[in-house]
């Protein structure tokens, strides 16, 4: 092979093939709702990230306390998109990323709930432990509030998809989706628990 192509040509061809495979994996990761940084990383290290393409994180995320509401909200929105047909302002996969982010946030709520329910944070005389437990509960409440807000935004998005059939302007729906993505991205960020005084 090297004799036919020449060593340099073979090396360049292999490099291009590697990059092409990386672009394919990056596309698959992007469609599954992974962060953009992860998708871009696949261009360089796609063999390491291949396992992420086998099953979407949304399917794997354990159910959290708001999973039912999330599923119902998105099911109705997916139906609205299907009803809109070719006039739909956005694709199903664009919403799927948002759904995956919400399900991950919901799963983190479940993990915190389990921690609190198991008595892993008992009432302690130590003020530091008490403050940390309080901070954890507050962070949980904030996260739940954010999920509620995103769900309300998805409801508005669904209404805008319906309005689109009459108005024909998809800018509002796209703007709404962009806002929701930003909020979902904020949910992915780790919120530091304030240190006890």
């Amino acid at each position, binding site marked *: 092979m090297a004799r036919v192509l020449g*060593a*340099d040509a073979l*090396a360049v061809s292999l490099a291009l093939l590697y990059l092409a495979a990386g672009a394919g994996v990056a596309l698959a*990761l992007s469609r599954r709702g*992974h*962060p*953009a*940084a*992860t998708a*871009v*990383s*696949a261009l*360089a*290290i796609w*063999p*390491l*990230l*291949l*396992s*992420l393409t086998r*099953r979407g*994180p949304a399917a*794997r*995320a354990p159910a959290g306390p708001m999973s039912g509401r999330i599923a119902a909200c998105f099911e109705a929105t997916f139906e609205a998109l299907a009803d809109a047909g070719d006039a739909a302002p956005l694709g199903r996969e664009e919403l799927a990323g948002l759904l995956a982010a919400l399900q*991950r946030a919901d*799963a983190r709520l479940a*993990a915190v709930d389990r921690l609190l329910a198991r008595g892993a944070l008992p009432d302690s005389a130590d003020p530091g432990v008490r403050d940390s437990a309080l901070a954890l509960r507050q962070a949980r409440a904030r996260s739940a509030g954010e999920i509620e807000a995103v769900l309300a935004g998805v409801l508005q998005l669904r209404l805008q998809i319906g309005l689109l059939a009459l108005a024909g302007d998809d800018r509002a729906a796209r703007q709404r989706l962009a806002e929701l993505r930003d909020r979902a991205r904020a949910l*992915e*960020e*780790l919120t530091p628990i304030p240190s006890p005084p």
Partner: protein
Amino acid sequence: MRLLTCATALLRDPVALIDDPDPRAALGRLAGPLLGITALGAGVFGAVVGSYRGGLQLFYAAVKMPALLLLPVVLSLPAIRAFLRASELEVSAPWVALAALAGTARAAILAAALGPVLWLYYSITPDYHAAVMAMVVGLGLAGLPGIGTVLRALPSGGSQRWLAAAGAAVILGLTTAQSGWLLRPFIARPTAEVAFLRPIESDIFSGLAHTASASVGVYSDWEAASGGLLYRAPPAQERSQVEAGTTSEETSADWSRGR
């Protein structure tokens, strides 16, 4: 900011970063920052290494050094996972990938931290072989904690863990050595040509055998080929000096060997 948070976690408690209950989600979340840290850290180290030659080599080495850390990991990971599973250590592909990336990123941070020391050493213009040895030692010092991080994060249980760890280390070491050979030059002599990549030839063992014999004064017929990708010849004045034999013996030998 996220890079800094991730770098802090890598230095303070890397095992906690790897030991996530959902490694698939963690890999999806952390792959980007870990790769960014590796690129930045190894890039800084590469730039320092390239500063021995200076000029374009500084840029080339900065670009190639992250590849030197990542390429062996990408190539050897399936074999390493097979070793671990043969030792009854059940680790998922996302876990192995996350652990490898975290170990590599930690090594890259430490390599960058060693950069100023290496730079100071290169500023006194040491001998070429000493400069190469300093780079190898620096990479070894930075790499060992990275490997240690992965070993400490391995799940408990299994049988003959040491055998799996040793096998993984041997595979990683061999692929790293050959990757370094393929991606050379990182350090070029001040009078040598500059090339992004040397022509593909021979392997690391031939190079080591030649260097070992040359170090005791026995020179073989083997010579590294000159040229390569983005090859640039040295300045004409230096070349003519070498060809006329007006420079030192070492420099003349370097040029005739295409180094």
